[in-house]
């Protein structure tokens, strides 16, 4: 049995056709997704704002403003990436000269009569993110102005209050108009759903492993199959070893794609890699069973069965939302109208199993999807059982 397992694994690994579809294809598609979705994800990340600052004078207001600029451009959560110049003209020139570069300034700030002013690049030439940065800059300066005014008022009205730590804390504590909360296990990204759908597709393409392995196990499909069938190893053991090798290879290929997605693609699995590997294992089992079931189709050459597998995978992936926003909406509509369509679609189940790890704080939804995948695998194996068990044929 070990011998059959070992050599089945070996010949499968050395089959270029199998490895291209089971390993290389998911990696290539992941790379394409990384290239496509990387800029999208980056847009959601706010980089420090490049701004030109006119060096304030040594007055009390100037020193306070300088301290404010320094405080917002240091540390882990820095907001500003300032460049200091001596005069407003120099600042305007610098902004203009950098306007057409890859990394332009959003404008410049200066302290005029003790009050900060921001001069930003006109919004017509800017994208949405640049507008957002301008709004943030304006908000920062407004808050600075308001607090400076409040402090001045406090000094003139009740200087003794400055000795009260509560007052001082209230004065300088950052104003939190909104509080960021995270209700999901991980930080969701626009592209995450595509990656999960891709994992569903990649898993099902692993069905080619089971298909090829089962084809060469049957005595009526090739001389090789016939030779193996008449061998003295128990057929049940040969089938078990072949299926185990197929599953292991599918699992390994999908695990590599999963790791590549997480490491190179930066897809977050919320630290639940162990649970993800369980999904990968279940997905590989379904894929192996699917390949096995397809191999049971009588009177059809292997190429035809591979064609059917490709068709099934592409069709199933469509409803998992792999092919872009319109198909994702179509998938959502179908899912809402015919929930059963999701239940019988292995690609959707695999994709949603990853989802449930990411977005639920209980194991229930994950267990549900894993259960459905296991039932699917059992049904598919049952379909192929009579074909796999057969050792004698009416014709070869």
């Amino acid at each position, binding site marked *: 049995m070990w011998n*059959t397992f070992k*050599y089945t694994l070996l010949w499968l690994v050395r089959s270029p056709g199998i490895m291209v579809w089971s390993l290389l294809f998911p990696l290539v598609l992941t790379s394409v997704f990384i290239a496509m979705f990387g800029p999208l994800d980056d847009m959601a990340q706010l980089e420090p704002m490049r701004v030109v600052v006119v060096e304030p004078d040594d007055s009390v207001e100037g020193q306070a403003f300088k301290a404010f600029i320094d405080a917002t451009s240091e540390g882990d959560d820095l907001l500003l990436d300032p460049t200091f110049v001596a005069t407003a003209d120099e600042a305007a020139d610098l902004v203009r000269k950098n306007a057409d570069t890859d990394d332009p300034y959003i404008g410049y700030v200066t302290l005029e009569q003790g009050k900060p002013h921001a001069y930003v690049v006109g919004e017509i030439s800017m994208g949405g993110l640049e507008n957002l940065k301008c709004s943030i800059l304006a908000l920062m300066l407004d808050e600075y102005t308001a607090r400076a005014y409040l402090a001045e008022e406090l000094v003139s009205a009740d200087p003794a209050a400055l000795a009260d730590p509560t007052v001082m804390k209230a004065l300088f504590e950052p104003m939190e108009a909104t509080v960021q909360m995270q209700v999901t296990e991980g930080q969701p990204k626009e592209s995450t759903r595509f990656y999960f759908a891709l994992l569903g597709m990649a898993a099902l393409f692993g069905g080619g492993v089971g298909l090829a392995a089962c084809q060469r196990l049957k005595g009526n499909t090739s001389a090789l199959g016939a030779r193996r069938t008449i061998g003295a190893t128990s057929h049940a053991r040969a089938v078990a070893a072949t299926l185990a090798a197929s599953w292991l290879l599918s699992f390994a290929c999908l695990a590599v794609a999963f790791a590549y997605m997480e490491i190179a693609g930066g897809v977050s699995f919320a630290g639940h890699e162990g649970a993800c590997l369980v999904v990968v294992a279940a997905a590989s089992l379904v894929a192996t069973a699917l390949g096995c079931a397809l191999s049971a189709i009588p009177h059809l050459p292997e190429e035809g069965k591979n064609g059917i597998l490709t068709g099934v995978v592409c069709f199933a992936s469509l409803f998992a939302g792999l092919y872009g926003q319109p198909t994702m909406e179509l998938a959502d509509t179908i899912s809402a109208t015919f929930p059963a369509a999701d239940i019988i679609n292995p690609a959707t189940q695999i994709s949603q199993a990853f989802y449930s790890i990411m977005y639920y704080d209980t194991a229930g939804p994950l267990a549900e999807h894993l259960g459905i995948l296991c039932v699917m695998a059992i049904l598919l194996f049952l379909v192929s059982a009579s074909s796999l068990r057969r050792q*004698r044929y009416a014709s070869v």
Partner: protein
Amino acid sequence: MNIVDVKNLVKRYGTTLALDHFNMEIAPGEVFGLLGPNGSGKTTAINCILQLLTYDKGSIELFGEKMSPTRYDLKRCIGVVPQNVAVFEELTVRENIDYFCGLYISDAAERRACVNDAIEFVGLQDYVKHRPKKLSGGLLRRLNIACGIAHKPELAFFDEPTVAVDPQSRASILQGITAMSERGTTVVYTSHYMEEVEEICSRIMIMDKGRTLAIGTNAQLKIMTGIGERIEVDVLELPEAARAKVQGLDCVQSADYDGHVLRITCGNGQHNVSDVLGILRTFDVTPGRIWAEPPTLNDVFLEITGRDLRD
């Protein structure tokens, strides 16, 4: 006890009768030749014996026991070299032999020794790390054989093992089969090459349309069919009376003269050449070259199965 005992085997493919009450008995140590035209049922018979094919009627016993698909104990004693090369393209020569040997022998150490013996037996020592697609046709056939006999079977089936093989490889394969037989292996050998069967087989069965047409040793088959030698005599002038006299001999089946050569086909007889020459002498005919060829298995085969072309 016969090693192979097949009785009244009937196998149908739809309405086509592939084996028609086919019988076969093979004694231990025999090299049994199974001959027949294309589609005569040779491979079907072997596949039924190996339990790869279902059959409609009859019984199959190997080593004195009833054969079934799950008789792995019996299968362990059988080696098969199929007609088509059946190996893994992705595995090397050694890996292929090890894999197929592993279907019969689970002990790794024992298997390693068997694999080494098989590699040496077929002369593939220099190619152990090659993959099949890098091997020539002859080497592939030798690998095919090694995969079938590495576990040292007591009964080996060779189904046309020398198809598309060069004369050197063929000679090597035949030597190997003879060596196996000498070691006590019972061999069932099918081929279209009559001279091979004639060379190595101790007993021959000729079958057609799923039935046994003749069975016996090479000599027995020749006697059975009544085919004798073929004689050719170069003569410049042959009176018709002389030709008719030759034709009239008991041992002569036909005598044709084309103006240069007298061609005579004989039946069984002890003194065919001297009888013919005696007649020519009585007509004062001086022969030039005289050439006599004993009957071949090919003649027997064609006599038994007919000369019509097959599919």
